[in-house]
């Protein structure tokens, strides 16, 4: 169980996350929706402790994780793997090494640390990485450099890296915002597979309500750092969306009302 209480983060005068409280049971797939700047990313980064909270607490399995330091903090981060919008693979390393990065914090002791510095990984670790890549249909790319892969492939490699951490929670920050619809579907399917088969808790930030409705058990809608809705996808009706955001669902997605003829004034004969 992930318990978030009164979590707040200020950046200068703006409150990116403002008193958020959530209870997320193990194994749930939660979609966090909201427009850009609603505080979705900051919320996920607060949980991974990439951003420090201004106030409030985060507890996991009864333990306060918002004050951890040093090795305990690194262990917590390994336990709640991050997947980023821009994939954040190390472009000049090959895919296999990128995936093996997920094992770094599992290797203990000065000697293992030295081996890591020289990028020496055991046969068992390499085999596990290959098996993970194979599971997402990426085995053929294992020895290619990460920057030779398409966006959809890179995001799946990022998911493999996350799984190699053997996390309890997967935090996905806008994982499909940079992908085309086809690849977006493949990546969302991969996240759901991880949630259903491995039993990981998945928190995924999404732009689109439809994606959240199709994949998530629960939807959290944010606006200006606050949670405005928290419930099953079925409860988030068009009326609720209009109430929370003050616009229709189509407008929420940025499809502005159709232009009514006026358009942009053109100099006469400019295109003649």
């Amino acid at each position, binding site marked *: 169980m992930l318990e978030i209480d009164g979590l707040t983060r200020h950046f200068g005068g703006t409150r990116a996350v403002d008193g958020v409280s959530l209870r997320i049971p193990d194994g749930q797939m939660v979609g966090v929706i909201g427009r850009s700047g609603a505080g979705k990313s900051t919320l996920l980064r607060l949980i991974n402790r990439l951003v420090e909270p201004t106030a409030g607490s985060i507890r996991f399995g009864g333990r306060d994780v918002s004050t951890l330091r040093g090795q305990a903090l690194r262990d917590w981060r390994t336990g709640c793997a991050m997947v980023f919008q821009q994939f954040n693979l190390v472009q000049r390393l090959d895919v296999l090494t990128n995936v093996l990065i997920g094992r770094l914090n599992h290797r203990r002791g000065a000697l293992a640390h030295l081996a890591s510095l020289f990028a020496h990984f055991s046969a068992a670790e390499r085999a596990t990485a*290959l098996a993970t890549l194979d599971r997402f249909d990426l085995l053929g790319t294992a020895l290619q450099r990460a920057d030779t892969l398409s966006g959809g492939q890179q995001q799946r490699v990022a998911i493999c890296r996350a799984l190699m951490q053997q996390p309890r929670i997967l935090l996905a920050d806008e994982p499909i915002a940079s992908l085309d619809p086809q690849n977006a579907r493949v990546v969302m399917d991969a996240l759901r597979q991880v949630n259903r088969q491995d039993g990981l808790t998945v928190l995924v930030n999404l732009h689109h309500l439809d994606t959240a409705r199709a994949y998530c058990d629960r939807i959290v809608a944010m606006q200006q750092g606050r949670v405005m809705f928290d419930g099953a996808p079925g409860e988030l009706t068009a009326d609720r969306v209009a109430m929370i955001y003050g616009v229709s669902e189509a407008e929420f997605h940025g499809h502005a009302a159709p232009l009514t003829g006026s358009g942009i004034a053109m100099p006469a004969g400019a295109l003649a």
Partner: protein
Amino acid sequence: MSRALSADEVAAWRSRMPAAFAPAGAARAWRLFWAAAFLAWLATTLWWFGVTPPRLWNGLWGLGVIIRQMVPPSPGEQWVEILRGLAESVAMAFLGTAIAAFVAIPLGFLGARNVATNMLFRFSLRRVFDGFRGIDQLIWALAYVRAVGLGPLAGVLAIATADIAVLAKLYAEAIENAERRQIEAIAAAGGSPTLVMRFGILPQVAPIMLGHALYFFESNTRSATILGVVGAGGIGLQIAERIRVRYWDEVAFIILLMVVTVMAIDWISSRIRRRLIGA
């Protein structure tokens, strides 16, 4: 993938994709060969120059004696001369770098692959840069002292000549790494080649150019010192004279002044960079 793989499964993966476990035989042998060649080269040069522990030890001892004579540093009696020489060195570095930084801008554009598309022209220009870069500042200084006589003018010309080629090469590389999409947009909007350079490339590379120029100014302040030794103006002559008569305390004073000057320039140039680049 939380379950650990059994030894058999690991072996199966190894036989399915051996390249993922260790570099192939040829690649491994090649790596070992280069490692051995590097070590052999290192050992040969050490042997050639007779680098032995006792020689290093005696050298360090001699250096220790000199450092003891430097304490406490003293300005001597000619401190006005020293300050004048230092100011002259900084002025030489500034003038020489400024000339080089401006002349190198058009040359950098001409030497960039994405601007000068004529292969033969670009290739020849780049080889000319290489030629100029092959000649050190000090050699230029010796030549200019004969050509224009003793004094700071020779130093300024030496700094400018030596740096034009280096800066032009660095500028050309920065221009080649400029993002194509932004350049394309200016061309697509109907911009002429010159205007594409002005609005598509220059905004991208200007901060890099400025950064290089400021770094060269700082570096030239240091190297302008040595130009004085060959008579090309600046503080160098004063240091050389004092070393000849072993006034190490006065040498130390000048060195400290130079360190402070370079630190001040570094501080100012980092302020300028932050102000103009916004980073």
